[in-house]
């Protein structure tokens, strides 16, 4: 199984590496890292490291970066007529699914990690502090990395689910964008539906809880959702229904 995952991962990596267009690929990765790891830290100065909420706000570019990759995962193979041959091979379903998730997640998360490292270097070079090296508080660093990872897995697993049944990359991308919009809007809508008393209590609770604690609750919720969606994608992965276009 590991060998199978690695085989598909190897192929995905090679394709990503050869990719010359703007949809995902190494160029996009570098541009995003330059944006979040160099440009923004230069603007914010020492605050980039001292005020971790800034870095937290800037976790979104990697989330955006994985969308094309994951939309392409199955729909792209279907569109380019390689899916059926792949499905006719001895690869187990899970190996194909997991390898495709893995490459997208690593693509996005490595962006975040690289941006945080680049950010630290940039800030220390551009605004050297007399007190020594400026680094993120460790607890915050772990929280940001975890939120970023959980959110990337969330988008990738939804993306894989959508891409599995889409005829073209474009339609997968569109469906995925709509889904993301719904994911962002739904909590707001839900909040609007509960009674004003409850809402007050909930918001009050959030306001009095340390941000880090709230974040770990969000992470826990995301992890549960991630596992659920991956299981669902695995269940929807039926070869006899995948080649029909």
């Amino acid at each position, binding site marked *: 199984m590991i060998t199978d995952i690695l085989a598909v991962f190897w192929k995905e990596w090679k394709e990503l590496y050869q990719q010359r267009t703007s949809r995902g690929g190494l160029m996009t990765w570098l541009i995003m890292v330059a944006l979040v790891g160099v440009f923004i830290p230069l603007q914010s100065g020492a605050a980039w490291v001292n005020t971790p909420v800034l870095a937290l706000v800037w976790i979104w570019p990697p989330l955006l970066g994985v969308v094309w990759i994951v939309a392409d995962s199955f729909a792209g193979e279907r569109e380019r007529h390689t899916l059926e041959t792949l499905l*006719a091979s001895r690869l187990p379903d899970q190996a194909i699914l997991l390898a495709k998730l893995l490459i997208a997640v690593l693509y996005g998360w490595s962006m975040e990690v690289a941006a945080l490292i680049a950010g630290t270097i940039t800030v220390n070079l551009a605004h050297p502090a007399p007190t020594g090296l400026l680094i993120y508080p460790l607890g915050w660093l772990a929280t940001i990395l975890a939120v970023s990872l959980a959110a990337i897995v969330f988008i990738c697993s939804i993306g894989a689910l959508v891409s599995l049944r889409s005829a073209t990359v474009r339609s997968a991308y569109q469906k995925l964008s709509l889904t993301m919009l719904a994911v962002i809007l739904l909590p707001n809508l839900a909040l609007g539906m509960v009674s004003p008393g409850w809402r007050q209590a909930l918001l009050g609770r959030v306001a009095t809880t340390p941000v880090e604690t709230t974040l770990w609750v969000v992470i826990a919720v995301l992890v549960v959702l991630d596992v659920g969606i991956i299981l669902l994608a695995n269940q929807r992965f039926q070869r006899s229904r995948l080649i029909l276009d």
Partner: protein
Amino acid sequence: MNDHAIVTDAMTRDFKSVRAVNELTIEVPRGILFGFLGPNGSGKTTTIRLLLGLLEPNQGRAEVLGFNPKTQADQIRAHCGALLEHTGLYERLTAEDNLDFYGRIWHVSAAERQARTLELLKSLGLWDRRKDLVGSWSRGMKQKLAVARALFHRPELIFLDEPTSGLDPVAASALHETLIDLAARQGVTVFLTTHNLAEAEKLCGQVAVIHQGKLLAQGSPTELRAKMSSPRVEFVGRGFTPAAIEALRGYPKVTDVAQSDGHLIVDLKEPSETAPLVTLLVSKGAEIEEVRKDQASLEDVFLKLVEEEK
């Protein structure tokens, strides 16, 4: 069952209103080249998908290498190689990487992958272009590479959906040699579809002809030809007197005798030896220059079968 690579029993598959495969019952012996013939849209590709477990039949059952495609498709795919409707090549990868990927999938060791890539690409004349992205290749080159990918891991059963389409005559002929060799020397079974009936006739130990998903005939090309064409003998010579013709008409296996342009055309009930006919004619004073047995080609048989069905 064990001497058969593939057995199907009344296998049926519908797509909405279209019955793509209709109660198909065939047997494919191991170690032969099996030609699966039929007009466009007759269900050949669908049958291959069913056998590989990529589609499920609505009715009927099948056994491939002793496994059931419904429940044991993984085992079937583990022992098969396939070139399907599309080449399935990754155009953003090099030729070498395309083969390497499928080698990895089948757990071929790194050294063996290298050796096999060298062997296959050299024999196809593609070795010098191995570092090209496949997207930049011509159709025939891609087709060759796709065939190489299907054979790469030395499967015991190979499905080839129109493998020679787009190949030049030299490449097609080389592929024929390869396939014949695989079947003869390594006992590999090859299930191939083609629209080139001369190719099927030359290559295949057995063929099946289908039309609108239904099996019309199965057998060796020779058997089909014999079964389908009413045999006819043509005599070229002199002295075909009315007496000689009368004598022929009286011969039990002869159904009709006609004379045209100095030739005598004799229709027979069934294929039979021509020597007694020659003797008979000579005894009546005829002089025979040449005897021609009319043999229908597989193409004639195919056209006749499909025409009858319409």
